[in-house]
């Protein structure tokens, strides 16, 4: 047993509540060791379970009481070095279940559905380029609205303009799916400011798009692909100083957003030269039916067609996926398929993380600096 748990047990047996309080205040939870992590819950309960999103492990793992009649619960989970997982506790009491964040852990990650507790296994530290750098000049974010004939409605998006933006130079354009979520949950503005400041990517303009009906519009919907190519792109190129060549145009997205990016590039070849696809929901079938539910029907139809005839959606494609995601199989399968076409450059990265925004944040430097290399070697200020 972990020495800290033994100490906890001793304090608990003595019934010294004050010493227990002090113990909890002076230690960090979960307890991180080289080979894994020990979660601790303190409170009255009939049962406690760990709820996580690590594909490959039972997603619902039962805690053990530290002693009979104890209100201390613990669970050890083997976690390879460098892992990062998000989790909640399911506390069962008097037949009722409560899904809560870990009360002993202040680390949280946020997504459109709320927050999860974060466990950083041994060896994981958030990359420093994801944290605000006072030396990095901040870019500006503007709100834009344009009318779409294709969707017969106004479309709102946000525009990231790099620091020291000027109309006399031409900028690459990055169109980001789920742009608000990338801003709110993946620190996209901080990352862009920092990477531009470090000269690892060139100053670029990002169109941060979002959809109120993403499970439809991002699911290989031709209206969305046409909207990007025939409405958004001309709208931006008319108003902004952009590099009007495929190598200056990138599409990016995560999950369904990655499907939308790949589909938009595939249906409009030679339009976009750069793709950044994160944990794409690239479901397909080799035979029989898929089991992911009806929202995936159009995705599977697209991916099956794509796999028969991938063509050349872009010159450079960066793909990343978490090893703890159920989509790892689909993403791994995509890589050799794309690599068969020697006219494309494909780079693939995996991380010991799940299907979440901080995983996608942590891969941005690798992807963006490869797709859009900055003048790092040339500029000495």
């Amino acid at each position, binding site marked *: 047993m972990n020495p800290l748990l033994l100490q906890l047990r001793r304090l608990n047996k003595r019934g010294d509540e004050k010493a227990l309080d002090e113990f909890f205040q002076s230690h960090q939870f979960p307890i991180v060791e080289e080979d894994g992590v020990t979660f601790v819950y303190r409170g009255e309960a009939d049962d406690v379970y760990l709820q996580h999103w690590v594909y490959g492990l039972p997603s619902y793992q039962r805690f053990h009481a530290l002693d009979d009649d104890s209100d201390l619960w613990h669970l050890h989970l083997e976690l390879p070095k460098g892992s990062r997982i998000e989790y909640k506790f399911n506390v069962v009491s008097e037949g009722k279940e409560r899904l809560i964040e870990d009360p002993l852990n202040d680390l949280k990650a946020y997504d459109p559905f709320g927050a999860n507790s974060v466990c950083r296994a041994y060896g994981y530290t958030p990359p420093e380029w994801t944290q605000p750098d006072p030396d990095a000049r901040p870019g500006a974010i503007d709100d834009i609205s344009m009318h779409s004939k294709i969707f017969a409605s106004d479309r709102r998006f946000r525009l990231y303009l790099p620091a020291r933006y000027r109309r006399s*130079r031409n900028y690459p354009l990055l169109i980001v799916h789920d742009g608000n979520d990338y801003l709110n949950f993946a620190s996209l503005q901080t990352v862009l400011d920092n990477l531009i400041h470090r000269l690892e990517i060139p100053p670029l303009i990002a169109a941060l798009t979002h959809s109120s009906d993403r499970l439809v519009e991002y699911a290989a919907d031709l209206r969305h692909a046409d909207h990007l190519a025939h409405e958004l792109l001309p709208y931006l190129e008319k108003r902004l100083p952009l590099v009007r060549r495929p190598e200056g145009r990138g599409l990016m997205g995560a999950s369904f957003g990655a499907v939308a990016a790949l589909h938009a590039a595939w249906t409009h070849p030679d339009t976009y030269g750069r793709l950044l696809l994160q944990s794409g929901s690239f479901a397909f079938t080799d035979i029989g039916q898929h089991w992911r539910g009806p929202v995936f029907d159009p995705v599977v139809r697209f991916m099956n067609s794509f796999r028969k005839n991938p063509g050349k959606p872009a010159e450079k494609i960066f793909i990343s996926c978490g090893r703890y995601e159920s989509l790892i199989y689909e993403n791994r399968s995509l890589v050799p398929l794309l690599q068969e076409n020697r006219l494309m450059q494909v780079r693939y990265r995996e991380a010991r993380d799940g299907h979440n925004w901080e995983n996608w944040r942590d891969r941005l430097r690798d992807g963006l600096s490869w797709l859009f290399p900055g003048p790092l070697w*040339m500029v000495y*200020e």
Partner: protein
Amino acid sequence: MPDIVFLGPQRHQPTLAQVLDELGLSGPLCAVTAGWQEREGELEELSAHVGCRVDDLQLYSRAERLFRNDRALLEEHRLRQQKLMRLQRFYRLRLHYALEAVRALNREEQTPLRSLLGSEKRSALNAVRSLDRRHLRRILKVHQEHPELRLRNHVQRQEVEGLIAASKAVLIAGGHIAVLINRMRLFDLGELLLQRPVIAWSAGAMALSERILLFHDCPPQGAGDAELLETGLGLVEDVVPLPQARQRLLLDDSQRVGRLAKRMKPALCVTLDEGSFIHWRGGRLLAARRSLRLTSQGKLRPLNPS
């Protein structure tokens, strides 16, 4: 040969005003900020810092106008740049494998008959040095093939000459080194800079040396192999300036440090970080502060006048 001063980066803790005081220089001054490209000539902060008038030589925008109005010159320039880029690509390919051989031999330390290894390591490094020298010769030859890309008698160059003549000193700012050296060479600035004291920082210092070395030990992509880009104007001999060395180089890695020092010999690799100051007069090193030289043993030693 006038006074020449190299400084470290000037953005966060500028030392330029203090250096001008030390040298007894006051305005008016002129500046080369072509390395800032589209931001060329935005001198408000610099003027406020030095407290006197600073005229920008506008080498970047002058060149842009020239290329717009003189089709033949533009085509000639494009042709030369294509040749240089092609050469750089070939050199980079060869350099990668040559340096890989050096690294591989360095990993052989545990090999039996270790006495044989030293000679192989020296030979591998000499191959890199030979490749570097050859690259610079090839670049020089390309420049010689395009003499019309030195505007010796052009009215624009005469204007530049007039601005320098009306100044007490020339400042050369950092920025994009390829753009900076390209514009300085186009206006044949080397000769003009012999008339006045010159204070250069970061890329500006690189442009005044004999060879321009691009370096970064931890780029997000690639191996971080330092490579020669160009010949510089050669106003300072046998020195390879390394701006922002603390950020860009793994100075604790004695193997890397020693390898770079040996590779650049007889030139001395010197760091230019915040507060660095190196002063030459008549080609002789007069004074240096907060600048380190890289030694063949992989150490960092203060740069001192001998």
